[in-house]
C-alpha cells in the first residue's frame, strides 16, 4: 500500500513538474525573444502605412532610436515623426522598465511643450494605425502567463505556438486583449505571427512579420523589418516598413532626453 502511495505521489509530482516545466519553457522563450529585441543602440527610419477598408492610404514616416541599459533593466526609446506635415516634429520618449511602469513623454509642436503621459494607456492606437502602443514594444513576461500550444510553420519557418494570457484583468484592460497567440521562430526567437483576441475573446487582429533580417552579425541578432497588422473587425490594415537601420551605434545618452525631442 505504501509503495502504491509512493508511486502515486511520484506520478502526481511528475505531472506537476512537467506542467511547471512547460510553463517555464514558454516563459523562457518569451524572455529570450524580448532580450533578442534589445540592442545596445538601434536607429531606424520607417514608413507607417495606414490602409482603410476601401484601400485608401495615409502614410507617416518616423525616426526611432533605442538604447538598452542592461544594468538598469531599462530600454530608452525615442520616436519622432518626420511626415506628414501636420504631425511633423511630434515626438515620443519612452523609458521602458522591466519591472515597473514606464515613463512616457510626448512633445506636441502645436503646444511647444513636452507632457508626461500615463503609461497605462498601452491599448491605444499608435498614430491612428492598427498597431497599439503596446504592440510597438516586446511584451513584458511578468505581465502574462504562457503556455506552449505546439509547433507550427509560419512562412516555412518552424515556430513555437505560445498562448499568452494577461496575468490579471487590469493588464488585459490596459492592453485591450484577453489573449494573444504568438508564433516565435525557433531559429532566431523573432515573432513571426501573432493573433490578438479582444476582451470578448473574439479574434481582433493578426500580425505578420513579412521580412526578417539579420542586422547584427556579431551577435547574430535579427529584426522584423516589415510588419503587417490586419484588423479583422474593421477591415483596416497597417504596415511598418523599416527602410534605414543602424545597429550597435554608440548613441549618446543625450538623444533620449526631452530636450533633444524639443530641439527637433
Amino acid at each position, binding site marked *: 500500500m505504501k509503495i502504491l502511495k509512493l508511486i502515486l505521489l511520484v506520478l502526481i509530482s511528475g505531472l506537476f513538474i512537467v506542467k511547471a516545466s512547460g510553463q517555464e519553457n514558454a516563459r523562457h522563450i518569451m524572455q529570450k525573444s524580448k532580450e533578442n529585441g534589445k540592442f545596445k543602440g538601434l536607429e*531606424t527610419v520607417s514608413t507607417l502605412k495606414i490602409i482603410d477598408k476601401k484601400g485608401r492610404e495615409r502614410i507617416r514616416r518616423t525616426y526611432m532610436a533605442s538604447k538598452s541599459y542592461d544594468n538598469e533593466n531599462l530600454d530608452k526609446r525615442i520616436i519622432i515623426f518626420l511626415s506628414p506635415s501636420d504631425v511633423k516634429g511630434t515626438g515620443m520618449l519612452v523609458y521602458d522598465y522591466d519591472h515597473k*511602469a514606464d515613463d512616457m513623454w510626448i512633445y506636441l509642436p502645436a503646444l511647444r511643450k513636452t507632457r*508626461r503621459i500615463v503609461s497605462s494607456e498601452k491599448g*491605444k*492606437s499608435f498614430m491612428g494605425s492598427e498597431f497599439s502602443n503596446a504592440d510597438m514594444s516586446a511584451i513584458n513576461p511578468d505581465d502574462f502567463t504562457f503556455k506552449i500550444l505546439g509547433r507550427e510553420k509560419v512562412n516555412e519557418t518552424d515556430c513555437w505556438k505560445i498562448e499568452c494570457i494577461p496575468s490579471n484583468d487590469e493588464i488585459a484592460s490596459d492592453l485591450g486583449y484577453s489573449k494573444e497567440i504568438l508564433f516565435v521562430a525557433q531559429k532566431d526567437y523573432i515573432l513571426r505571427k501573432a493573433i490578438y483576441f479582444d476582451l470578448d475573446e473574439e479574434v481582433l487582429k493578426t500580425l505578420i512579420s513579412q521580412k526578417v533580417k539579420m542586422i547584427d552579425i556579431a551577435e547574430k541578432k535579427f529584426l522584423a523589418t516589415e510588419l503587417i497588422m490586419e484588423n479583422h473587425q474593421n477591415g483596416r490594415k497597417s504596415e511598418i516598413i523599416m527602410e534605414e537601420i543602424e545597429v550597435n551605434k554608440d548613441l549618446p545618452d543625450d538623444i533620449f532626453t526631452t530636450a533633444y525631442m524639443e*530641439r527637433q
Partner: protein
Amino acid sequence: MIKFFIPILWLTGQILLAQTLLNEKDNYSNDMGLKTDFGGFVRGVAYAGRTNDHKSAELKSIYGNASFTVKTLFGDFGKGFAEVRIRKGYEFGSDIGELDLREAYAEFYPGKFEISLGQQIVSWGKADGFNPTNNITPRNTIIRSPDTDDMNMGNFLFRVRYQFLSNSGFEAIWIPKYKPSVLPWNFSSMPEGVRFTEGDYPDGQLQNSSVAFKFNMDLPSFDFSVSWFSGFGLDPGITIGVPDVLPDSTFLMNVVTKAYREQITGFDFSTTLGKYGLRGEVAWRLPENNYGGKIYVPNPDLWYIFGIDRSLGNVQIIAQYIGRYVIDFKDIVLPEDSLDLIRYSLEEGNRMFFRQQYKWSHSASLRISSDMLYQTLTAEVFGMLNFTTREYVIIPKLTYSITDGLSITAGLEWYYGKENTLFDIIEDPFNSVFLQLKASF
C-alpha cells in the same frame, strides 16, 4: 595654447558623437551637407457673432493666412529656423494686412550646450492652458484663431540650455528689449474726454533688459522645474498719461499702457499616480518695490494651478483648479473728489486685467477631448469657470483631417462675465462661431 585647444577638441568630439540617423538622412541633403526643409501652411479663417446690440449678426474676423517656414540643419552642430506669416483680411471692423517675421533664430550645439539667438518663442510651464511660470514670450490675446499657439509672439532672446545630465538641465535667457503682450484694452469703453493710447515702454538701454533662469529635472515618475524671472512684466498696466490740449482749449485725458518691473519665482511638476497624471504650477510674483503707489503695477501675488488628467479609452480629460492669492490686498474706495474718479476706474481696470479683484480667487478648468474615426476626427471642449468673479468661457470645437495635411475645424467661443469683469468686456467682440480650413505642407 594646448589649454585652449583641449576644450575645443572635447566639444568637437561631443558634437561628432551626437550625429544621428535623424539628422543625416531624413531630409533633403545638398552638396554642402546641409539639410534644408521648407514647410508651412495656408488657411482661411472666419469668425462670426452678434453685433454689440445683439440685434443682428456680423463678421468678427475673416482672413487668409500663409505661413512659410525654413529649417536648415547643420548635422547635429546646430540649426537655423525662420517663420514668416502673411495675414490679410478684416478684423473687429477694420481691414488688416500683416507681414510678421514670427521667428528667426540660429542655434548651436557645443557638447551639452544649446545656444540660440534671435526671434524665438519659448513656452514654460506644465499646466494646461494657464501657465504662471511662462513669462518669456508675450501673447496676443485678441487674435482670432482656433490654434492657441497663434497667440504666441516671437521675442528677441539669447538662450543657453545646458543639459548636464540626461535627466537634468539648466536654462538661462536674456531678453534685451521689452515686448508687451497684446491685451484687449481697446474693448473697454472710455468716458468722453479720455483717450486710450498704446505704449509707454522701456527703451533699448541694457538696464531695461530681462533675464530668466530655469533648472529642470526629469526623475523616474516625477518631473519638476524651478524658475526665476526678473524683468518687465509681459502684461502692462494702464495709467494716466500727459493730457493733450485740443485747439478749442479743452483737455483730452490720455490713458496709456505702462510696463513695470517684477520678479517671478516659479515651480512646476508633473507625475503619475496609477492611471492618473498629476501636474501643478505655482508662481510668486513680486513687483517693483513701491507697487502700492502705482496703479499700473499689480500687487504681489501667488498664482497656483493643480491638475489631474485621465484617459478613458479614446477620451482624455484634464481637470484643473486655478487659484490666486493677492498679497497686501486692499479694497479700492470710491473717491469723494470727482477728479480722482478716473484714477479710481483705471485702478479697477488694472485689477480686472491682473485678475486681482479679490484677495482670494478660485477657478476651475476642464478640457475633454476625444479622437474618433481612427484619429481623423477630434472633438474637444474646453471650459473655465471663475467662481469668485462669476465669469466663464466655453470653447467646443471639432477638427476633421480630410486627408494628411488638410483639415477643417469648426467651433464656438463663448464668454460670459458679470458686470465689471474681463469676460464682460470681451464677450461681445469675442463670442463667435468659427470655421478654419487649413492646408499644411
